[in-house]
């Protein structure tokens, strides 16, 4: 049986050359919700995701996915890395890239076949990119590239999705498409962890938020945690713009 906690992080500490990047993080994420990880630049947001996925080595601590270490639960996890982390001039079509999401399930040596193509097309439908299936990936706009990455994660058919800055530099259409997709995922009972930059949209898009600045500042339901005081703790003095902001969610900010 699954516990109701999808992710359980205990005492996670990561250091690059003895400089702590993440300091003793404890985190419990209930399943079936959308969580944003926010914090200033250099707060360790991406590192937190990568450490949970076992992509960077932790100096201490561990991550449990539905009660078991990540290595045993890989099939339950989908990952959307930052768009800028790959070379988009790579000789590959959109369909090719999306099918890469099935490689893990295929295991060694077996090649993707018809089933994988069908899954990939279905995922491309969900992000409204089916017409682009045969396009070379360098011919896509930034938003389209992002949607291809989302489709690649969707074919992983996971329970938990980790997304690193999916809203970074995308057009309005793509932003709406991603939001819709996130809501569909939540409706299907999936958990989605998103590294997010835009504080304004946090209350609108997410249920749960973790404020991070090397240490965990706070983590919990947006309404409880996304307060001005916590934001000031996370961002230092640099959060003043928030009180001046047009207030997409003034009630949560009025602490």
């Amino acid at each position, binding site marked *: 049986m699954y516990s109701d906690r999808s992710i359980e992080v205990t005492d996670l500490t990561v250091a690059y050359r003895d400089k702590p990047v993440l300091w003793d993080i404890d985190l419990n994420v209930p399943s079936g919700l959308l969580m944003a990880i926010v914090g200033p630049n250099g707060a360790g947001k991406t590192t937190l995701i990568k450490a949970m996925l076992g992509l960077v080595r932790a100096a201490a601590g561990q991550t449990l996915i539905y009660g078991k270490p990540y290595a045993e639960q890989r099939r339950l996890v989908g990952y959307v890395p930052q768009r800028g982390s790959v070379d988009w001039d790579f000789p590959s079509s959109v369909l*090719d890239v999306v099918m890469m999401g099935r490689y*893990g399930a295929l295991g060694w040596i077996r090649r993707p076949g018809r089933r994988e193509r069908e899954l990939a097309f279905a995922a491309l439908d969900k992000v409204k990119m089916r017409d682009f299936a045969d396009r070379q990936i*360098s011919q896509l706009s930034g938003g389209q590239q992002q949607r291809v990455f989302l489709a690649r994660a969707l074919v992983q058919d996971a329970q938990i999705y980790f997304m690193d800055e999916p809203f970074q530099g995308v057009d309005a259409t793509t932003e709406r498409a991603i939001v819709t997709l996130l809501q569909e995922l939540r409706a299907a009972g999936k958990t989605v962890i998103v590294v997010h930059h835009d504080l304004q949209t946090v209350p609108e898009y997410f249920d749960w938020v973790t404020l991070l600045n090397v240490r965990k500042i706070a983590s919990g339901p947006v309404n409880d945690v996304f307060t001005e005081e916590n934001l000031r703790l996370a961002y230092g003095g640099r959060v003043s713009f928030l009180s001046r902001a047009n207030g997409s969610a003034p009630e949560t900010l009025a602490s």
Partner: protein
Amino acid sequence: MDWHILQELFTDYTLRTVALGAATLGIISGTLGCYAVLRRQALLGDAMSHAALPGIALAFLLTGSKTPLILLLGAALAGWTATLVMMSIVRMTRIKEDTALGFVLAVFFGFGMVLLTFIQKLPNAAQAGLDSFLFGQAATLVERDVITMAGLGAVALALMLLFWKEFKLLSFDPEFGASQGFPIRLLDILLTSLVVIAIVVGLQTVGVVLMSAMIVAPAAAARQWTNRLGLMVALAGAFGGLAGIAGALISAMGRGLSTGPVIVLFISAIVLFSMLFAPNRGIVWNWLRRQRNRRRLKLEAVLGDLYALSQQHESLKHGHSIEVLRVMDARRGGVQRSLETLETRGWAQRVGVDAWTLTPEGKHRAEQAAVGRYG
């Protein structure tokens, strides 16, 4: 020029061996070079091939054997060591990759030269031929060499095909691969080893100095023609093999045409041709496309201008001076040619010496275009 050379390809043993060897090396380095180029390791190939020299010399010093397999093994080990040294310098210090590469290249090669001069003083004459690795001497290839090359190459290509999906993932998005549980470091080591094999296989034919070109050039040429990894790898293999055979033949035709440089010039010519003329990416292709677009836009603009003028006169009978159209075009030129094109399409007609008007068909087109643009 002596075109009997093609006939000799089938009758002359030496030429056949050399051509086969060069083709084999071209195919292997072309195919595996794609990964080196796509993973931005083009110059690593240069460093590896230079670094192979001490390996060859040491293998000979230690075993006293000139068996190709042993020499190539030494070359591969040295190439690998150089790669490791390079990577540890980059990882552990603030020295950047280019410096680490140049350092490894020069120091390993220098050490290789020390060993070579050492070997040259040995009493037994068996050392002859080792310095053919410097610039490559395809003429020294014998059947045994070609068989070794082909055997090693076949193993490397088989592994590449076997792990096709994994190598593709590794080259495009290694972190995503790692998140799916693939041992990316291991795959990296395997793929780099295959590239090392590709390099050492070509050393005797092309030499350490020019070997990097055989890694980079076929892949660079193939990339221009296709957007698919599979096709790119196949094309690069074909280009490499073609350059190998052509190089062997051309160099057999004339005095003083060493095989290595000729092969390199041939493959470089393919690169140049591809960069200029390949569809979609080629420079000339793009230039032509831009010209065509510009002409089309000009045509639409002139059509629109004529339409605007005809609207003022409410009759298609009234001719409009080409001078007026030129002014409306801000004198960017090409109005005359656009009008002539419109005339051949039956969208405009001449009603005087230099007076033009729209045909009913042209008016219809202009209205459609306006709807398309603003509607």
